[in-house]
C-alpha cells in the first residue's frame, strides 16, 4: 500500500490544529492549546485537577475555531466510577454564560459529550473498533467527534498486573496496542486525545530514570513519578504535570510541561473555581 508523500507545505496550511483548554493563560504555554493527531498525557496526584481540565476540554471543544475550539463533540472514556456528572453540568452552564452565541448547535452542550465506562485494559483494546465505528458515524453530523478523553489510563492497569517479568511484558505490550490504536484514530480523524495518569511515590534508593524537563516532580510536599513507567512514557507525545500543595486552607496549583515535541519548558500557576480551571498571571 503506497502512500503519497505529503509535502509539508500542504501540512502547514492545515496547520497544527489545537483545542483550547478553556483558559488563555494555560493555552499560551501550550502555544494555542492541546494539539490534534497526538496523545497528550495529564499526570498528577488525586485531586490535582486532571478530571477538571478534561471536563473543561470537552466543553471548550464545542466552540468554533475562532474561539479556540474545534466545533466538535467528544468521547469521554472513564475508568473510575462514578462519573462527575454534576460538575460537568455546572461547567457547561459556565460555558453557556460566557459564550452565549458562539456554539454552533442550540442543543445542550451535554448532548455533545458521549460517555463510556470501561473496567479493564483488555476491555479497552476490544473497544477500539467500536470507537472507530462511532467516530465514522459522527463524522457526518453537525459536530463530529474531535476529542477523546481517557480518564484515567492508570486505573486500567493498577490492579490486575503483578510485578513479575511476564506480567510487566504483557502490560507493556498492551500500552503499545492502546497507544497505537489511539494514535491511528487521532491521525485519521484529526482528534485531540488526552489521557490522564496517576502518580506513585518516588522511593529513595531506587534507580530512577529522568524523563523530561524536570529532574524531579513534587506534589503535596513529596517527590512523585508518573505511574506506568518508561514504557508508557514512550507511548505519549506530550506530558503535562499538575501539582498541588496545600498549607492550611490555601492550595497552590501548578501546571508544568514535562515534555512535548513542539514546546519549551514552562510552568504556570492555576486555580480551580466553581466556574472552572484558570491560569493565574505571573505577578
Amino acid at each position, binding site marked *: 500500500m503506497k502512500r503519497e508523500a505529503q509535502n509539508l507545505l500542504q501540512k502547514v496550511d492545515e496547520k497544527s490544529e489545537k483545542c483550547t483548554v478553556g483558559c488563555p493563560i494555560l493555552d499560551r504555554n501550550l502555544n494555542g492549546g492541546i494539539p490534534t493527531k*497526538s496523545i497528550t498525557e495529564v499526570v498528577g496526584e488525586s485531586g490535582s485537577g486532571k478530571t477538571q481540565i478534561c471536563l473543561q476540554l470537552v466543553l471548550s471543544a464545542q466552540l468554533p475555531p475562532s474561539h479556540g475550539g474545534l466545533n466538535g463533540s467528544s468521547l469521554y472514556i472513564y475508568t473510575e466510577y462514578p462519573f462527575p456528572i454534576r460538575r460537568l453540568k455546572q461547567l457547561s452552564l459556565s460555558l453557556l454564560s460566557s459564550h452565549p452565541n458562539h456554539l454552533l448547535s442550540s442543543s445542550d452542550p451535554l448532548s455533545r459529550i458521549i460517555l463510556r465506562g470501561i473496567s479493564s485494559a483488555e476491555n479497552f483494546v476490544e473497544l477500539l473498533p467500536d470507537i472507530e465505528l462511532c467516530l465514522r458515524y459522527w463524522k457526518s453530523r453537525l459536530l463530529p467527534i474531535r476529542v477523546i478523553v481517557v480518564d484515567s489510563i492508570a486505573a486500567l492497569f493498577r490492579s490486575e498486573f503483578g510485578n513479575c517479568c511476564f506480567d510487566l511484558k504483557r502490560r507493556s505490550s498492551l500500552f*503499545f496496542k492502546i497507544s497505537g490504536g489511539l494514535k491511528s484514530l487521532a491521525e485519521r480523524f484529526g482528534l485531540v486525545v488526552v489521557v490522564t495518569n496517576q502518580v506513585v511515590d518516588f522511593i529513595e534508593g531506587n534507580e530512577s530514570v529522568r*524523563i*523530561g524537563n524536570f529532574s524531579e516532580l513534587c506534589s503535596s510536599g513529596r517527590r512523585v513519578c508518573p505511574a506506568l513507567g518508561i514504557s508508557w*512514557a514512550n507511548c505519549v*507525545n506530550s*506530558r503535562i504535570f499538575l501539582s498541588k500543595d496545600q498549607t492550611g486552607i490555601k492550595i497552590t496549583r501548578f501546571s508544568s510541561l514535562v515534555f512535548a515535541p513542539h514546546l519549551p519548558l514552562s510552568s504556570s500557576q492555576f486555580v480551580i473555581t466553581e466556574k472552572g480551571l484558570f491560569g493565574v498571571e505571573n505577578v
Partner: protein
Amino acid sequence: MEIGMLPISASKRGKLLAAGYTTLHSIATTSITHLATDIEVSESEALEILNFATRNSALERSSGSNTNVIQGGQTAWDMLNEERFSSSITTSCADLDNILGGGINCKEVTEIGGVPGIGKTQIGIQLAVNVQIPLDYGGLGGKAIYIDTEGSFMVERVLQIAEACIEDMSEYSHHFHKDNQAYGVKMHPNSILENIFYFRVCSYTEQIALVNYLDKFVTEHKDVKIIIIDSVTFHFRQDFEDMALRTRLLGEMSLKLMKLAKNFSLAVVMLNQVTTKHVEGSFQLTLALGDSWSHSCTNRIILYWNGDERHAYIDKSPSLKSASAPYSVTSRGIRNSTSSSKRIKMV
C-alpha cells in the same frame, strides 16, 4: 594500448608512457604520491587518473588477467578514495559533530536512542533541515524523507528550526562573504518545508510497505540525502504472537535500509526508544527491539541526561571513538550546550 582508453589529455598519456606505466594495472596498483612525482602532475590530477584506471581495470576481470577484484567488488583503496569525498550532515551542535567525525555520515545507518523528552525528534527535525543547507555553505543541498510513526512531528516546530537555520546561514555569509553579493541567502522557510517528504505510518505493516517502496521513491527523487525514521520501534512493541516473525521482519527492514544507504549514498537515521532489560536480578536501561537489532545499524548513539544537561554517547561505531558530548535543545533547534564545563570526554 590500454592507456589509450583513459579519458585524459594526450600529453598526460605521453607522460605516463614515458614514466613506464604501460598497463592500467600498473597505474591502479601504485599510490597517488608516486604517480604524481613520476609524471609530474598535482596530487589531485594523479588521483583522477588513478580512479579512471581502477575503474577501467575492474572491467577487464573476465579475461582472467591479473585482476584482484571480483564482480561487484571493490578494493579497500577505492573505498578509501570514495570515503574522502563522502559527506556528512551537521547536527548544528559543534561538539556533537566533533565526536561524530563531522556529522551524520552518508552511506551509513545511524541509530539514535534515548528516553522520552531527551530530544530524539528534535535531532531528527534538525537533520531534515540541515541536509538542505546548500553546497556553498558546506552542506549537501539535498532533500529529506521523514517517516513519522508516532505523531511527534509538529510542523510549527519545523518552521521554527528552518527559520533559525536560514538566519544562521545569512549571518555566516555576512561574516565571510561581505564583499560577495552573490552569496545572498535565497532560501525561504517554505522551500525548506517543501523539501521534506513526510510520511505518516500507523501500523507495522504500513511501515514495512513504506520501506519497501522507498527504493522506487529515492530512484525518482535522486536528491534525497537522508531518511529519518521516528521511531523505528513504536509499531513493533505490540504483541507479536510470533517473536520469530518480528525478528525476521525487523531484519529484512534493516537490510533494506542499509542497501538504500549504500546504493544511493544517503544517510539513514533510525530513532529508537529505551526499555528496561532484566539482567541478573536488576533492571538495566537499554535500547528497545532486543539484542539482534543492535546489529542492524552502523553507528549507535545513546542520548541521556547528565544532571541537568543532555549528552550524546557513541555506543557503537566501526570508525568513531567512544566519546560523549553535551548538547542542548533550544528554540532554534539543536545547539551547543551553554554550560561552562563543556568538554568532550573520551571514554
